[in-house]
């Protein structure tokens, strides 16, 4: 049954990527320049996930101020920069998203 091998293979590569460094954690010490580079991982990866979702919902550009994704994204970003409280950022962004969504619809 080929599907079994698909699952086994997917498990091996997924878990492998996540575990290979942890497995030898007591021996693996990353050089300082890599540690410095890794500081930029959260901003880079999360930005690369979020920005296309906000500017291109459904994979099409939508920069109108009636786009809930754009409005919610801008409000969350502004709140995050000004107040720096994650919970406020989340709530503010979500409220702006749904307000725009239902006012427009």
């Amino acid at each position: 049954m080929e599907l079994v091998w698909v699952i086994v293979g997917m498990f091996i590569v997924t878990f492998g990527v996540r575990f290979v460094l942890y497995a030898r954690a007591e021996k693996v010490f990353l050089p300082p320049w890599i540690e410095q580079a890794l500081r930029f991982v959260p901003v880079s990866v999360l930005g690369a996930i979020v920005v296309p979702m906000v500017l291109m919902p459904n994979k099409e550009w939508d920069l109108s101020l009636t786009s809930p994704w754009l409005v919610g994204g801008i409000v969350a970003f502004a709140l995050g920069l000004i107040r720096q409280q994650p919970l406020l950022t989340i709530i503010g962004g979500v409220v702006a998203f749904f307000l725009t969504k239902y006012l427009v619809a």
Partner: protein
Amino acid sequence: MTKGSAFRFGALVSAPMILGGVPFGIIFGSLVATSGYSVWLAVALSAIVFAGSSQFIAIGLIAAGTPAWVIVSTTFIVNLRHFLYAADLLKYVRHLPVGWRAVLAFGLTDETYAAVRPYYANGRLNEQTGHWAYLGSMVTMYSMWNVTTLLGYFVGSQMPNLSTWGLEFAMVATFIGIITPYLKTLPYWSALISASVTALLLVRLPNNLGLLIAALVGVSMGMLTEYLQRQQQQLPSKG
């Protein structure tokens, strides 16, 4: 923090992303059902592989009759970004027994990384009990993912237009809330802007390749900006 309160803390800070993941899990389950596969395929993918976006890609490839090795290599590329997360969190799990590290590696998703990483950075989580918060995050993510997969498989077709509800925005807002505290110096702005622009330009590349390349571009630009800043500061000031 005690073990129990750290566990609850991890679950709590993951809550918006768990909410945001609900529609994805339901859509995934219903996708397996409408593709005509047994519930065991849905369960096996969510319970054993546990990697959201690669599960969506895999079910599409399976339905198209793609050879196993292509599906497995595609999964590898899609999930390669988790290697960066593991490298980044390595210093916080190094002291743990290997069994603990294996469990934590299994749960190293975008969401759990995003949930715990800022609190390791600001000191709320540390070596004593941080791994319990990490575990709390992954257990709640895992439970949500498997429950919603089953829900989607059996009743997904009766929940119309789920993808237009916009619950996914909770995840977007959470990620934004994690990004913004970093934006105090130029190198982080540089990383964010270059990664975002790259991701937008490469949005049509298959298999999350655009995301992977964007992450590497962002990290490199952050480093480069920091290097240039340092060079500038070291220049002897004239006059």
